[in-house]
């Protein structure tokens, strides 16, 4: 009994002592710990893998350091499940005591993880989401998105369709929140006639029924949002039905580095809205794409680009803020947004901590044996999102 009651005390004492030593060390420490959370298993694993690889590439280019401090990057797989994501965030903050959290997965996982991040004040940079609640009245001083406001790319496609003078457009998306948001974003800038809005099942493999309806409607163009495997299925089948030549395809998050290996020629001629593509002709981007291809033997996607940018933002911010001061780091990150050289061209954090950036239109074209993006227009230059005015931050 005696020994039993003693043991916990001794363990506590030891932990406390170790804590003291660690706390003492951290004041003079030259180490930065970053928690990177992304979906690394399941159908969207490639999205997470690109973020990890993009981030690690930047850290490697910076000599394994962020802001002059040796960087330790902890990687966790949220499996695209909100409950697992929020557990990981708690672990990062309470156990690992990270300086910043990066990645944060899809909107639903990000929103579930948000309460603990806000409570702790830890700096968080999302590299794959920018949900509207976080962009509007619910914006937070320590939560950033280095990716996009979710509607941005769809708005660019709507603007392009409007600029091109298209009269009748057909809209398609999977039947869930992001699908509805994308179509809403498109309609915010497109003022012509929407022939039909079709919502399909999430992860539906076969689109023959919907393609027959699309063919019968004979619109000027079709706008779709089909991320991942859904997009590969849809575009392959649309191309096989001989519709690519008849109905121009506009899309967002559908034709990108993650799906092109499965699409190849089927995607030729389609137009995508995005804030980044491997084709962007800036010195930073050329270096990023070349280094990424050399290291990982594949073309990076926008998810790799946002994570790469996030690492470079943190590099500047961590160099300025005093270690352990989360508030100062948040301020430094905000400032770093307009100081660092983004691979996507112009970039700054808006008052709501979401990007002010260009949204481009890329056409998929054949080049050599490959299918690559080609910049055809910049429908929304230096675009602020539609929600930033509702945010109380300065």
């Amino acid at each position, binding site marked *: 009994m005696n020994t039993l009651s003693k043991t916990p005390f001794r363990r506590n004492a030891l932990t406390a002592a170790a804590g003291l030593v660690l706390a003492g060390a951290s004041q003079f420490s030259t180490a930065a710990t970053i928690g990177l959370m992304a979906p690394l298993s399941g159908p969207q694993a490639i999205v997470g893998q690109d973020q990890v690889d993009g981030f690690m590439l930047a850290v490697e280019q910076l000599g394994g350091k962020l802001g002059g401090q040796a960087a330790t990057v902890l990687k966790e797989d949220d499996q695209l499940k909100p409950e697992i994501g929020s557990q990981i965030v708690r672990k990062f903050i309470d156990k690992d005591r990270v300086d910043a959290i990066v990645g944060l997965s899809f909107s639903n996982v990000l929103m579930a993880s948000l309460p603990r991040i806000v409570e702790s004040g830890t700096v968080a940079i999302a590299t794959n989401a920018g949900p509207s609640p976080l962009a509007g009245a619910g914006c937070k001083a320590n939560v950033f998105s280095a990716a996009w406001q979710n509607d941005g790319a769809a708005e660019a496609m709507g603007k392009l369709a409007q600029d091109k003078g298209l009269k009748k457009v057909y809209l398609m998306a999977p039947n869930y929140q992001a699908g509805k948001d994308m179509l809403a974003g498109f309609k915010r800038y497109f003022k012509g006639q929407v022939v039909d809005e079709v919502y399909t099942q999430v992860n539906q493999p076969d689109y023959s029924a919907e393609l*027959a309806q699309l063919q019968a409607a004979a619109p000027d163009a079709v706008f779709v949002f089909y991320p991942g495997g859904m997009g590969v299925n849809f575009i392959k089948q649309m191309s096989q039905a001989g519709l690519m030549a008849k109905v121009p395809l506009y899309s967002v998050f559908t034709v990108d580095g993650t799906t092109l290996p499965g699409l190849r020629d089927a995607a030729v001629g389609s137009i995508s809205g995005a804030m980044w593509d491997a084709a962007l002709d800036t010195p930073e981007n050329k270096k990023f794409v070349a280094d990424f291809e050399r290291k990982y033997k594949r073309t990076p996607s926008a998810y790799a680009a946002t994570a790469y940018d996030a690492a470079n933002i943190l590099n500047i911010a961590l160099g300025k803020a005093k270690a352990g001061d989360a508030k100062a780091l948040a301020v430094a990150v905000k400032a770093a947004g307009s100081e660092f050289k983004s691979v996507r061209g112009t970039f700054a954090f808006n008052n709501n901590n979401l990007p002010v950036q260009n949204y481009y239109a890329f056409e998929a074209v054949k080049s050599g044996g490959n299918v690559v993006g080609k910049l055809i227009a910049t429908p929304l230059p230096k675009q602020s999102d539609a929600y930033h005015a509702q945010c109380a931050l300065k």
Partner: protein
Amino acid sequence: MNGTIVFAQLLNGLQYGVLLFLLAAGLTLVFGIMSFVNLAHGSLYMMGAYFAATAFQYTGSFGLALLAAMLGSLLLGLALEFVAVARLYRRDHLDHVLATFGLVLFFNELVRIIWGPQPVFLQVPEFLGGAIPIAGFSYPAYRFAIIVVGLVVALGSWLLINKTRVGMLIRAGAVNPAMVAALGVNIRLLNAMLFAVGAMLAGLAGAMAGPILSVQSGMGESVLITTLVVIVIGGIGSVTGAFYAALIVGIVDTLGRAFLPFMLRQVTERSLADAAGPALASMLVYLLMAVVLAWRPQGLFPANR
């Protein structure tokens, strides 16, 4: 809504049904005759697609890709039967589910390790690349090819089961395996062959679906669920039942997706129809299954016992 579009949608339904049949034939035999629940059937379908994609990448020939998919999944089926499945026949269904679900996770991870997390590419063969115009509509030639292959397999399996000695043994083994074994037939070998042939058909389905779908890890799961619906509707263990049920499910699902949202718009306001239509269309085959189970629990076309 005119005649041509209904016709085009019926063709779509037929094609989807035929593809489902390729999967359901193997699954229903293994389930009905060996009383073995095989959730890994979808993984064999996925492996078939990957085998085909890999063979196509190296040879450039779609015929060889199909052959590689069938041979590869046949051998994989044999290996699987020998290593895992044969030990499970006498255990109860829950053990089957547990073990084969484990296999699903295993195969999903395996393809990710070998082929990577990105979808791999498999294209429609050159000579089937075009679209055939029918009454003002263009219909992909490749989908006609799927219909033809499916019908040929259906005819072949009907002949095998009803007209050959092996088929007779299969049917006998389903009714009374102990008696068949007592008569000197190697029922163990028969089961292994049956499982392997089922795997081969799943591989063929995967290879045929490869050019229209995204070949990626986990592609077998969603189609497996629909296949289970098919064999329940058709009557477990009946290949004929699986054929008719696959066509019914294919056509009901396709027509539901195509026309239900529009029909709902006639009777209710647009926003409600847009929200309810797709949801209702996706439930349609399950509703059908529920009705069949309530009305004829043994399925629409049960195996003759």
